[in-house]
């Protein structure tokens, strides 16, 4: 398979800030690359360069074989871009927003209207089609923005933090959309601050920080490096904490951390850990108020990869 997106040694400086310090990216056709990193890591800068909005200081990037600097026009015919801040026109209705994009993509007005209607329908926006985008909720605005980037059926789609600021239900919904894009044959480059999002959607993950790639792997490979999932159990009766600790220790095969607040958590490997814990807790007759299995946070990923916390955490701390 060929690479739909390939970038080599991209650099970009804004004044005294080195936003990109030599970034390589490669996305095979028909796959999803998750670009994972904290705020200010250079994710958006990389996307803007790949989407021809910004010129790199050095390095090369190709989309579908076309150079973003020299064949920008060809590149623009292939791409769809959904920015971090939904760039829909608030004074226009949903339909007007999409018809405008269709006309700019040289569709006949009738075809542009048809395309707008079917995309609005697909994104559950038909009822709001004739309302101004100003009246849309955050989730609706994101969907409209994404619909706008799909009017021309782009082969390569850039999603810059598509779920930042969305509530969990809307987030799942956006994930479904991304999966549909891939099922439709598109190549997707997705930036995110969440490992679980990259894990759920991406075929490969590139982790960047301070404008550099610090890891590139499959989700499985990355999880192996950063320690897989964490199991957390909180018994209803704090007196049974020791029993819970013993059970979690057996399942995880490691010594759990018992925190002062009556919670036990341990790194576990394999998806069966949760089920096994439930079975054992039930057998012992222990009720729990919290039982969860989650991936390490971005902060924990960075700690594992670099031995330092992300810049944001440092600032907070």
């Amino acid at each position, binding site marked *: 398979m060929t690479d739909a997106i390939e970038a080599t040694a991209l650099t970009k400086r804004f004044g005294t800030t080195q936003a990109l310090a030599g970034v390589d990216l490669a996305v095979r056709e028909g796959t999803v690359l998750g670009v994972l990193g904290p705020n200010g890591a250079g994710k958006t800068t990389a996307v803007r360069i790949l989407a021809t909005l*910004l010129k790199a200081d050095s390095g090369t990037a190709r989309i579908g074989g076309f150079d973003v600097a020299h064949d920008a026009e060809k590149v623009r015919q292939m791409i769809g871009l959904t920015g971090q801040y939904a760039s829909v026109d608030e*004074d226009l209705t949903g339909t007007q927003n999409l018809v*405008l994009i269709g006309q700019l993509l040289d569709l006949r007005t009738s075809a542009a209207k048809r395309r707008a209607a079917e995309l609005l329908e697909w994104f559950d926006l038909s009822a709001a089609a004739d309302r101004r985008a100003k009246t849309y909720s955050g989730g609706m605005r994101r969907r409209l923005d994404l619909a706008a980037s799909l009017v021309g059926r782009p082969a390569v789609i850039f999603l810059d933090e598509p779920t930042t600021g969305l509530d969990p239900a809307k987030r799942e919904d956006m994930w*479904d959309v991304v999966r549909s894009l891939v099922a439709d044959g598109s190549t997707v480059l997705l930036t995110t601050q969440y490992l679980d999002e990259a894990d759920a959607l991406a075929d490969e993950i590139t982790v960047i920080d301070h404008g550099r790639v610090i890891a590139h792997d499959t989700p499985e490979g990355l999880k192996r490096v950063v320690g897989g999932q964490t199991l957390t159990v909180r018994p209803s009766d704090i007196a049974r904490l020791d029993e819970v600790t013993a059970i979690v220790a057996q399942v995880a095969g490691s010594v759990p951390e018992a925190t002062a607040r009556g919670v036990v958590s341990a790194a576990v490997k394999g998806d069966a850990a949760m089920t096994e814990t439930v079975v054992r807790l039930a057998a012992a007759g222990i009720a729990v108020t919290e039982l969860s299995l989650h991936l390490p946070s971005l902060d924990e990923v960075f700690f594992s990869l670099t031995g330092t916390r992300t810049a944001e955490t440092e600032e907070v701390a």
Partner: protein
Amino acid sequence: MTNAVALDASPRGALPSSPRSTDAVPLSARWRTLRHALALAKRSLIKTARTPEALIDVTLQPVIFLLLFTYVFGGAISGGSQHSYLQYLLPGMLGQTIALAGVALGQNLNADIEKGVFDRFRSLPIARSAPLVGAVLADFMRYLIVCVMTLGFGYLIGFRIQTNVIAMLAAIALSIAFALCFCWISVFVGMIARTSGSVQGIMFLLVLPLSFGSSAFVKASTLPGWLQAFVKVNPLTHLVGAVRGLLVGGPVTDHLLWTFAWMAGLLVVFVPLALRAYRKRA
């Protein structure tokens, strides 16, 4: 959860798959750009229609200024006859208002870029100039409103055209054409200014000396010599002079030629500058 399972579980079904190749409009590159610009102009007009308060500078402002100048300064300037001053003032007021009417264009473009709306346009396979040209074309409507309001309200308070309807239409056409060229300064400032508020500040600093340092409000012969030298080359002097000739009689040709020269000059200088600034602006 694995990707494969989730794919099948998507509740939305497959993405809709039109358009087809037959849906495309077969146009040459030049006509494509014009169609894009017109589509974007329509966008600007929709926005204007949604926010009528954005039209105050082309509706209420000419009315207020006409009243103020006619009844506050008119008597003093023309020795007691406000009516005869109105005959002199109106073409000048039309020139100032139509030059100021372009300020909002630069402000709006600046705000659009800040909001990221233009990122979408920049990622599309359209000419770089299309969003700017579209915005300028839509401004045509505002300039037409300026002309209608100024002449209409002027008529109500006593202004009378001394020529004929054709000359009046020519005056309107000339004013709008000039404004469409002059507004590229505002577009350029809109591209380089950091905030839309500063666009207004910069443009007022530019337009007010031009309109007051011209023959718009007083006869150039009353001004000191050094200022007269400026008045003679000032584009608003010539626009106002030509419009004055077309509306109330007097020499037109010289002013007209100067105005055309200025229009061409403005386009040659500020269109490329604006486009270059737009391309550079990330």
